[in-house]
């Protein structure tokens, strides 16, 4: 069918990457589901799987360029096998990964500073901790990197929400 072909977005953009991956996983999940999925537990299970698929797709779309994506992938990998100490692994991973990134703050950021004292003062004591909990992999970052990760994370989250919303709208007109 020769429909009006709108100008394609960048095929390698974050949105397209996430969309393709997520749709693939979603179709796989939907193919697996039994015909009678009206039980709440079944739906709950599917919900968990879809959510994990969404997070994993997003993290895979970002690859390992970001600390939060690495942390999220690690978390998703270790979660089914049981709750290991995710935080230490995350810290180790982020520490290793940070060496490859040329940033000057690397020397001072290996310590897990929950309260950034010093020049940042008391202001960021509580809020920074909250932000660290929200952003995956944020436990082992100083404030500057944390803000950096948060910015990228917000961007990816908005993309995720937009794509998922479109899918949901498509399925239920």
């Amino acid at each position, binding site marked *: 069918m020769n429909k009006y072909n709108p100008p394609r977005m960048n095929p390698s953009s974050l949105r397209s990457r996430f969309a393709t991956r997520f749709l693939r996983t979603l179709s796989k999940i939907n193919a697996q589901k039994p015909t009678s999925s009206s039980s709440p537990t079944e*739906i709950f299970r599917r919900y968990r799987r879809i959510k994990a698929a969404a997070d994993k797709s997003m993290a895979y779309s970002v690859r390992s360029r970001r600390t939060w994506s690495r942390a999220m992938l690690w978390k998703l990998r270790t979660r089914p096998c049981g709750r290991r100490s995710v935080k230490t692994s995350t810290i180790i991973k982020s520490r290793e990964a940070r060496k490859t990134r040329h940033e000057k703050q690397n020397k001072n950021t290996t310590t897990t500073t929950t309260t950034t004292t010093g020049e940042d003062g008391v202001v960021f004591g509580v809020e920074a901790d909250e932000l660290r909990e929200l952003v995956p992999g944020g436990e082992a970052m100083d404030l500057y990197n944390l803000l950096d990760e948060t910015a990228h994370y917000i961007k990816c989250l908005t993309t995720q929400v937009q794509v998922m919303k479109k899918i949901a709208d498509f399925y239920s007109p």
Partner: protein
Amino acid sequence: MASENDDMGLEMSSITILNKYSNTSESDPFFSSGWDPIVSQSESLGGSSIASHYHLVMENQGISGTSHVSQYQSNPSFVELVPKLTGFDGGNLSQIPGPFSLPQCNQIANSNERGSKNSLRSLDEHRISETLVGTSPNGKIRKRSPESDSPFRSCKNGNEEPGMDLSSEGCDGLREQAGKKPKTEQNLSANSRGKQAAKQDKDSSQSGEAPKENYIHVRARRGQATNSHSLAERLRREKISERMRLLQELVPGCNKITGKAVMLDEIINYVQSLQQQVEFLSMKLATVNPELNLDLDRILSKDILHPQSAAVLGFGPGTNPSHTFSPSTFTGTISGFPNTNPGFPPLPQTVLENEVQNLFQMGFYPGSTMDGFGLDGQLKPEM
């Protein structure tokens, strides 16, 4: 008006005194009308009773002219209040330590009484505007405690506006909010005091005037210690400020927010709301039975990749449907998505609004969870 004043015990007696003063002039109606917003404002600022008094004092002064100044001066309590007003040009009324700065006020009370009316009036404008804007907490941050020495020195010299140093010293003792240079404060000081401008440079202020910005650009400052530590700190703080600015652009509706703490709270709320949206959408996708095959998926991917965005994340007009709908009602197993983000009404509400419409069309009435699921298959008769 009087009922509000009853809450603040300290203000009661002063209010009666003020009433007595204001009755003598035509500013009485203004007084009664002007009290309420100022009271509410001061309450919102932290309930500094003396600060609200200051506003009243200045209002009356501005209206009735010089006659009241003498009246105020006769009252020793207002004599203390008047210099206190000068000390807070940054609008940090909420930060006024009542017993803390009063002793210093007594010292300079005499010096402030003469000819300080004009400057007070200008300060009043600045202060009121600043308290309204709410930029005060950041404008007053002084990261150096040794600065308090120079304020006292200049204070003893009997300059016209020694209260400025009081405020700096008080702020040093009070708040350790670092990261913001007191640029706006210095702006006011440069406007209102020409004499102390040179002295203020020692207090880590910029020598030149600069427009009030949300985040302060730090340039090389006169008299600033240039050891490596402070330089590194300043560089770091600049970077953090820049990051905060980027985040401010990312998070919708944060253009007016100044201040790192509030900004961080907004960011946290935003991230939480986004995560909740993802959960909600995944839940919705789980409940909807996708009977579509791959062709539709392909079309779907094209549709998704189309540049037309959903534009539901806060950019649209914030139509707030009733907040009574909570996503948790349509399923009993999920432990609810409490929509606890009052700060982003457009954000989740517009998304939820569509979801609500969709869900209601599908028969997801908030009370009959199982019925909704039962209707699910019936909505796609072709399958």
